[in-house]
Every structure is written in structure tokens, then in C-alpha cells.
């Protein structure tokens, strides 16, 4: 669905991407993780045609995103971290925007709003940031675009809304849709993500499926880490240590994205070795 080859991108003098290659397939939810300013939002904006690469190619659904053709735009929706909604009622917003999206479903939109518990009688400007974000997410999902890009979607949502968001998003995933979520708040989306891509210093540091990660890494909690070897990352807690270790014993442990991220960023070589070595076998 998305094929990025040798992407170079810079903001004037600040280099963001230096020849990355990536691909994203339909039917999965991708988590894009990385430090502040590493270019997660930039990548999303390159994918939807808001920014143009300095070199390299991006192919999305067979289109060059930079051309911003209507046929491309009606099959891609971006939910930016900071967004704009006009000062109109929800009904009017839908009346104005939905006709541009061929696969928009009014029934689904209403269901999502119900799930999100959004007061539909208010105008968009009268709503809180979180409520507006929920309207935008509901609209984005109801557009049924093949590609949905979300930049920090859980920012500004309260605890209950985050649960609603996970539930709604899980229900919206299907084999024809690709969802890419850029986030810092990995805990919010842990249960949703199928693939993890970690971006750092203009490079793709790590890109693996959750299945692959859980087969190669074990996420453990131990009070006696002395028995453990090859620790990739450890974090002291009040009652012991949270550890990331190679999954040599084929254990089934739940992937902790936060620990994974820290392990990859602090120990990239070893993590890469584990995945490269195993894939050769």
C-alpha cells in the first residue's frame, strides 16, 4: 500500500531523513515511535502529500502523494496532532465535507459519535479540544479511507475517552485499511498495534511486527536479575526490575512497547543483531 524508497527530507538546514526505505501493508495498524523532533509527523505529512521529499520516492496506493490528486486524497485521511475544524455544527461539517469522500458512511459516523459520547447539538467551536478530536476521529473513521494517518491521536483525550478510542479503532480495522499511528503514548495504543516502527536520527532504527517481537524478545519482571543473561534493557521499579531479554526459551510474554522502545533506543546494535540473526536462521 505504501512504498517509501530512499527518502531524503530536510527542513532548510535541518536534515530529518537520510535515505530511509519503508513499506506499509493494508490490514495492519502501525505504530510509529520516536523521540520529539525525529520526524514522525514529517513522515506522515510526506505520506499524505503535505510535504515533498528532497530525494527518493513515495508510492501510496499507486499515487505520488505530492500531486495531491483528488482520487488519492479521497482515500487518505490524516488526523493531525493540532487540527482545525470550522465554526459550524457537526451536521453542517458532515454536509460540507462528507460528499468529498466516496466511502463515507453516515451510519458509522453516528455510531462512532455515540461510542465517543459526543454532544451533537453543540457547534464545533463550543466543544472542548478532546470533544473536537473525537469528532474528527469519528469522521476520519467514517470516511473509510484505505489509509488513515493519526498523529498523537490520544493526546487530549481523558482516560475514559482513551478506552473508547481503542475500542472504536479496534472495530474499524479491516483487511483493506492501513492505519499508521504516530505516538509518544505507547501505553494507550499497545493493544492495537500490529507493527512497530521506531525512528531515530533520520534513520529507521527498528521495524518489526508484534508477533516477530514477541517471538524474539521476552518482557519480564524480576526481583533477581542476577540469573538473567544478555539483558537488553532493564528498568528499576520499587518492587524489582522490568527487563527486556532475548526470548531464548520461546516464552510467550506480552510486548511492552515502552520497554521495547527504550531497549531499541539504548541498545540498538544488540536488538538489531537478535532480529538479523534470527531471521537468517
Amino acid at each position, binding site marked *: 500500500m505504501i512504498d517509501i524508497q530512499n527518502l531524503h527530507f530536510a527542513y532548510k538546514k535541518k536534515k530529518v531523513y537520510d535515505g530511509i526505505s519503508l513499506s506499509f501493508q493494508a490490514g495492519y495498524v502501525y505504530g510509529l515511535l520516536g523521540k520529539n523532533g525525529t520526524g514522525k509527523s514529517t513522515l506522515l505529512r510526506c505520506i499524505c502529500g*503535505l510535504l515533498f521529499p528532497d530525494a527518493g520516492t513515495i508510492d501510496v496506493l499507486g499515487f505520488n502523494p505530492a500531486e*495531491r490528486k483528488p482520487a488519492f486524497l479521497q482515500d487518505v485521511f*490524516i488526523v493531525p496532532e493540532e487540527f482545525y475544524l470550522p465554526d459550524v455544527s457537526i451536521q453542517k461539517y458532515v454536509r460540507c*465535507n462528507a460528499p468529498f469522500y466516496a466511502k463515507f458512511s453516515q451510519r458509522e459516523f453516528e455510531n462512532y459519535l455515540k461510542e465517543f459520547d459526543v454532544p451533537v447539538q453543540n457547534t464545533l467551536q463550543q466543544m472542548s479540544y478532546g470533544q473536537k478530536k473525537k469528532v474528527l476521529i469519528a469522521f476520519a473513521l467514517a470516511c473509510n479511507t484505505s489509509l488513515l494517518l493519526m498523529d498523537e491521536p490520544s493526546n487530549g483525550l481523558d482516560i475514559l475517552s482513551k478506552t473508547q478510542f481503542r475500542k472504536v479503532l479496534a472495530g474499524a480495522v479491516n483487511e483493506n485499511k492501513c492505519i499508521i499511528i504516530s505516538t509518544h503514548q505507547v501505553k494507550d495504543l499497545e493493544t492495537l498495534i500490529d507493527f512497530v516502527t521506531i525512528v531515530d536520527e533520520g534513520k529507521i532504527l527498528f521495524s518489526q511486527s508484534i508477533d516477530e517481537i514477541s517471538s524474539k524478545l521476552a518482557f519480564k519482571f524480576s526481583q533477581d536479575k542476577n540469573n538473567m543473561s544478555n539483558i537488553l534493557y532493564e528498568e528499576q521499579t520499587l518492587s524489582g526490575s522490568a527487563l527486556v531479554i532475548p526470548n531464548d526459551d520461546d516464552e510467550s510474554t506480552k510486548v511492552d512497547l515502552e520497554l521495547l522502545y527504550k531497549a531499541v533506543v539504548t541498545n540498538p546494535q544488540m536488538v538489531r543483531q537478535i532480529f538479523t540473526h534470527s531471521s537468517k536462521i
Partner: protein
Amino acid sequence: MNNRFSFKRLLLLVQKQFSENVKLYLYGTLALLGLLAIVMFLWTQIGGNTYKEETLFNLYLIGLYIAGGVFANYSFGMLSNKDKGIYWLTLPASHGEKLVCAIFYNLIVFTIIYTLFYFVVSQGAVAYIKGLIKHDPFKYHYETINWNDDDINDEVTVFTYAFFAVQAFYLLGSVGIKRFSFVLTTAIGALLIIGFIFFMQYLSASFSKNSLSFNIINARSYSNEGNVYHEYSISRFASDTIIFLAKFIWAPFFWLVTWFKLKEKEI
């Protein structure tokens, strides 16, 4: 699917633009009405004893150019804000459709509304003046314009084309300039006009050195001794083409550049 231009999408864009900006347009219209009323009031109060329709027409043109420029400069204002720009650029319509939608509101809707309001308000002022004349016919006078005069018609035609060009220029400014767009566009426009005047003066001076009088499409040389008279002119076709382009090319040229700027726009 037609990715270049679809009338269906254009219609949707026009509807969307109106629905999302109806409040702004309403307030803008009321503000325009108020300003026109103030201008007309001042004209009736300080116009002296002889009122001229020509003054009214000049006021109409000044207002049309200034208000039209401001309105045109607002057209792509969304692009100077990241959040609004993303909303605008990711809407599934082509750049051409978005540009035509902006031209429609600027050139057609704005001009019709401004002209209509000006007509209504100015007719109120004229009615007041006619009342004064009726009351004291020896003191007050109202001079009308002869709209059948060819010179007046030529003047109206030139100002209409120039208005199209000015609006298109401000439209381009709203895409190309992020901050203080109106001020900077005005400054750049003024510099271009001044530069053009200086260039023409320079050309004219160069021709004068050689005892030639020059008016773009031809040059004449006179000599008193021996009554020598020469005229150098380009072909009729070429001169017609130059005049045609000078009149009509500016607005389409600025629209074309705006379209390219929209295509290149990154946020």
C-alpha cells in the same frame, strides 16, 4: 475519476466555502455596508454645492479596488496557518478547482455584492442631493456622467480589466506570502508599477536621444531641415497582440502562477 477538474466537486467546494464562512461573509457584508454609508454621508456633507456623479464613480472604483484586494488577500489565508492549511490542502479536490472556487467568490460574488450595495447606498445619497436641489435649485447642482460617451466606456473597460488583474495579484499574494500578506503584496505591486514606469521613461529617454518619439508600438522621427519624417512601427498583428496582452494577460497570468504556487505548497 477526473483528477483535474470536475464541476461536481467545484459545486461542492462552492457550497462548502459558503456554509463554513457564512458568518464571516455576513459580518463582512454588514461592515462594507456601514463603510459605504459613512463614505456617502461624508460626500453629501462635504461635497459643496455641486455634486458630481463622476466623484461617485471614482469612490466606487477606489472602494472596489481596496475592498476587493483585502477580500482576495484573505482567500488563501488558511495556508498561512498549519492546522487550517492541512484541513484545506487535504480536502479531496484539485488545486484548479480550489483556485476556481476562490476566483468565483472574489471576482463574481464579491463584485456583484459590492456593486449592488454601492448602488443602493449611492442611490440613497443621490436621492438626498436631489431633495436638496428640489428645495433650493439655484444653490445645489448634480452633474451626471454621460454613459454613452466612448471615452467613459473605454475608461470603464480599462478599470474593469485592471480590477481583474489587481484581484488576481492579491490572490497570488495570499498564497505566496505568509505574514502581512496584504501589506507586502501592496508594496510589491507598487514597486512593480514604479519599476515599470521608470523602465518606460528610460526607454522613452533613449528614443528621445535619437530624436524619436516613442509609444511602445511605434516610434517617430522628425526633422525640420528638409522636412524629414520617419515612422518606425511593428506590424499591425504584433501591435494588436501587444495591446491585447497588455489588457488581458495579467489576470490569467497571475491565476496561472497562483495555481503553480498552490501545487507547490507544503505544510
